[in-house]
């Protein structure tokens, strides 16, 4: 079964310098019970830093772009999405 949540973390230089380096620590932060439901991967530059008014670092979750992300914000987003999925 594919994971419910697919997360791409931009590892382009802009995102990395602006704080994306910490986001790449996400896999070790995920609680064991989420591991099969969340798929995390680092990607090369998503090229969003030039196309949007949002600030780096960027993360794409199930195809949707999120800017100015930090690790706590990302964990909260995942939790909400998993709870919503459960509620349905």
């Amino acid at each position: 079964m594919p994971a419910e949540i697919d997360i791409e973390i931009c590892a382009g230089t802009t995102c990395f310098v602006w704080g994306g380096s910490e986001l790449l620590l996400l896999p070790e932060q995920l609680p064991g019970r989420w591991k099969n439901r969340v798929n995390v991967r680092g990607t090369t530059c998503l090229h969003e830093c030039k196309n949007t008014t949002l600030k780096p670092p960027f993360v794409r979750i199930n195809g949707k772009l999120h800017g100015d992300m930090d690790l706590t914000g990302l964990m909260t987003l995942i939790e909400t999405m998993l709870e919503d999925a459960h509620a349905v």
Partner: protein
Amino acid sequence: MQFENHARRLRIEVVTRLARLYAGNRLTSDIHKTPFEMIPRTATPNRCCVHKDRAVVRYRVLAALGFRVEDETEEWKSLNDYASEALALEKPEGPVLTVLDTACESCIRTHFFVSNACRGCVARPCTTVCPKKAIKIADHKARIDEDTCINCGLCQKACPYHSIIRIPVPCEESCPVGAIKKNESGKERIDPELCIGCGNCVRNCPFGAVMERSQWLFAGKAIREKRHTTALVAPAAAAQFPGTFAQFKTALLRLGFTEIREVAQGADETAKLETAEWREAIQEGKPYLTSSCCPAFAKTLDVHLPAIGKNRSRTPSPMALTARRVKSEHPETLTVFIGPCIAKRMEAQNLPDVDLVLTFEEIGALLIASDIDVLNQPEAPAFTTEASREGRGFAASGGVAHAIHASLKPEDLFRPVCIDGFSKENYLRLKEISKNGLDGNYLEGMACEGGCIGGPGSINPLRAAKKKLTEQIK
């Protein structure tokens, strides 16, 4: 404080914006827009209002151009004029850190405070334990008389409800050597004679009110003027950017550096010389030798702990040796050390062979401004002579002692002690060593936890950097 926080992001945003303006030839015409672009009138202010936020950004811009905010005399001068002035300079001189007094919140001096968890109990151990009788009970609640209180903290320990809290001044609390203090108006000031450049105050001020005086512009200018420039890349670089060290080298060449040198080669030389110095010191009957490649540690010993300082190694640091070699080959080159360290800027002020010092944050901003993505770069060819694994290992705590150990014989009886960062406990340990001597015969000292890979100008959190360094130097 946590590695990733909004004060850090603000600092990086300012340097990135300025580097982009410079790359687009708009620094002297558009820099005055930066505070407004960063804090538009629709923004939710961090402080009282957007106007104060913009005023703080203005001072962040000054520091990012290399100016010392304390030196400002013409408050009305436009940022465009400041940018022109900066471009006419070779590099900033004087203290390496600056306090943005507009950003400094003048925190109340470190004090103890009775929170509303106080139940006004009958036993009142806080009042009996206080040696100055500074605690009175009023309206069923303990009150501390601040004029009488001597901050001993006994009341805090005695309260069964944990209702007494200690409120520190974060910058003063984080400074291991007491170099940052309040002036008569309550704003913080750094005494450059005492400051060791560790950058703890930069990392720990929750208002981001302490900034380093940046040098990115001067490196950018030399590259643009097509001067011969040599990037002296610290061993810690292997643990910083995404991709490999060889890709990072290509990125620096694309940025416009004429040559790239690995400071780990200088580290190999430092290890060799320091091994010989250690042997000689022990033979001469000295109790121990200390490392000296961490400039914050070296200055601490010289200024604050002279009893340890008399055993300090006089071997030049890897940066000094690498720069000396490069300048002997290319006397005309501009040497730019690239590392995680603010204290290296202080060290460079006494070294004619090191022209500029950039942090990973600053080199990151220059790469962003030139649209150079490290992960997309091909790997650069290897150096003619590659540094050893031990030389590259200088980047982490324990690395210097390990390198010396590796070149000794078993009969040398090397007994190293490592100080991994200037935490409160570690600094107390140093004071104890200063008083009672060292249980060992070599003292390696690193002001940053984890060593250089945990430096204040890093862009990778320590946990990730440790892992990456191990992968890169295996």
